[in-house]
C-alpha cells in the first residue's frame, strides 16, 4: 500500500463511527456567536465613549490652563463646557449587558500549589499549567449536556469527589466530569497527568461565587 492510499484510508478510519451532535452545535455556537458580537459592539461603544471622554478631558485641561474665559471662547477646536457628557452609542442602541454576558471570570477556580490558570471566557474554558509538563483544559458547559457528555466518554470509568459532589473520570479520555450545579458542569481534561493525579488536582477546583 503506498503512502497516499495508506494515509487516506487511515484518516478515513480515524474519522469513522462519529455522531455529530448538530443540534447542540447549532445552539451552542449561536449563543457563543452572539456573545462575540456583543463584545465587539460593546468594545466599539466603549471605544467611542473613551474617545469622547478623552476629547472632553483635553478641552477641560486646556480650559484650566488658559487665563481668561474670553480666551476659552475664542479658542477654536475645543468644547467650552469643560465637562464631558455621555454620548449615545454609535449604533443608537443602549448598551446593556445581558444576563448571560460573562462577568469577567470563570465559574470555577483552581487553587493548587504549582498551578496557574489563564481564562478564555469567549471559549468557556481556562487553560491551567501545573508542575513540569502537567496541564489541563477546564471547560464549563451547560448542565443539560452532562449526561450526553458522560455517555460519549471512553475508557475505564471511576468516580472521584469534586466540587462538592461526585465526578466521573474516564481514563480513555483522561477527563474528569464534575457534578452539575445550577446551569453548569465542568470537564477537566488532563494533559501529562495520570488518573490518580487528575483525581487529586480536581479536589482543588472550586465554584466561584457570582461567577458566570
Amino acid at each position, binding site marked *: *500500500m*503506498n*503512502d*497516499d492510499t*495508506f*494515509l*487516506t484510508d*487511515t*484518516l478515513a*478510519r*480515524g*474519522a*469513522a*463511527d*462519529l455522531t*455529530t*451532535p*448538530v443540534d447542540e*452545535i*447549532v445552539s*451552542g*455556537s*449561536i*449563543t*457563543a*456567536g*452572539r*456573545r*462575540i*458580537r456583543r463584545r*465587539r459592539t460593546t468594545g466599539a461603544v466603549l471605544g467611542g465613549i473613551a474617545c469622547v471622554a478623552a476629547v472632553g478631558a483635553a478641552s477641560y485641561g486646556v480650559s484650566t490652563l488658559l487665563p481668561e474665559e474670553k480666551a476659552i471662547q475664542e479658542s477654536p477646536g475645543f468644547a467650552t463646557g469643560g465637562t464631558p457628557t455621555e454620548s449615545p452609542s454609535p449604533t443608537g442602541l443602549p448598551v446593556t449587558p445581558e444576563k448571560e454576558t460573562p462577568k469577567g471570570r470563570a465559574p470555577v477556580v483552581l487553587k493548587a500549589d504549582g498551578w496557574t490558570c*489563564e481564562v*478564555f471566557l469567549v*471559549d468557556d*474554558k481556562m*487553560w491551567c*499549567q501545573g508542575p*513540569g*509538563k502537567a*496541564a489541563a*483544559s477546564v*471547560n464549563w458547559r451547560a448542565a443539560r449536556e452532562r449526561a450526553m*457528555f458522560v455517555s*460519549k*466518554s*471512553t475508557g475505564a470509568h471511576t468516580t472521584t469527589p469534586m466540587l462538592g459532589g461526585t465526578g466521573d473520570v474516564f481514563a*480513555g*479520555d483522561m*477527563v474528569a466530569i464534575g457534578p452539575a450545579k445550577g446551569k453548569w458542569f465542568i*470537564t477537566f*481534561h488532563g*494533559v501529562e497527568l495520570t488518573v490518580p493525579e487528575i483525581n487529586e488536582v480536581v479536589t482543588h477546583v472550586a465554584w466561584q461565587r457570582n461567577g458566570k
Partner: protein
Amino acid sequence: MTSDFTEFVHETAARLHRTAVLLTADRHLAEDLVQTTYARLYASWRRVRRADNPVGYAQVTLTNVYLSHRRLRRSGELPVDATPEPTPHLESPDTAMDVLAALRELSPTDRTVLVLRYWEDRSVAETARDLGISETAVRARTKRAADRLRVRLADHSPIPDARTP
C-alpha cells in the same frame, strides 16, 4: 439569518467534526473546536454567507482555531531532547479509537499536515502556505508521519517516497 446559519451547520457539521477529530485526535476537544469555529462564523455570518466558498471558509477557520489552541498550549509546554519512541503496535488497529491513539503520538504539526493533505485534499503548496512552513518541510513531515503511523498501526508494507503535488 439564524435559519440560514442553522441550515449551513446541518449541511457542514459532520464533515467539519471529522476534520476536527483528526486534527486533535481527541473527540471532546474536537467538539469544542467545532463549536468555537461555528461561533466565529455566526458572529460574522453576514460576511461569511456572501463568501464565494463558505464551506472552505469554515474549514480554514477550523484550522486557525485549532492552531490558536495549539499556540495557547505551546506557551506552557517545555522542550524535550527527543520525541519519545512510539509504543508497540496496537493489538487491533482497525477501530477509529486505535487510529486516533496512533494520531495522538504524532506532533500536532505533523498531524495537521496529514489532515490538510490527505483529508482536506490540499496540495503541498497550499498546506505549506496555510501552516507557514516550507514545501520541503511539508513533504518531510508527511513522510515521517506516514512512517510512524505504519509502525504504530503495524502495517509492514513498503513505504515509498512521500506524495508529490
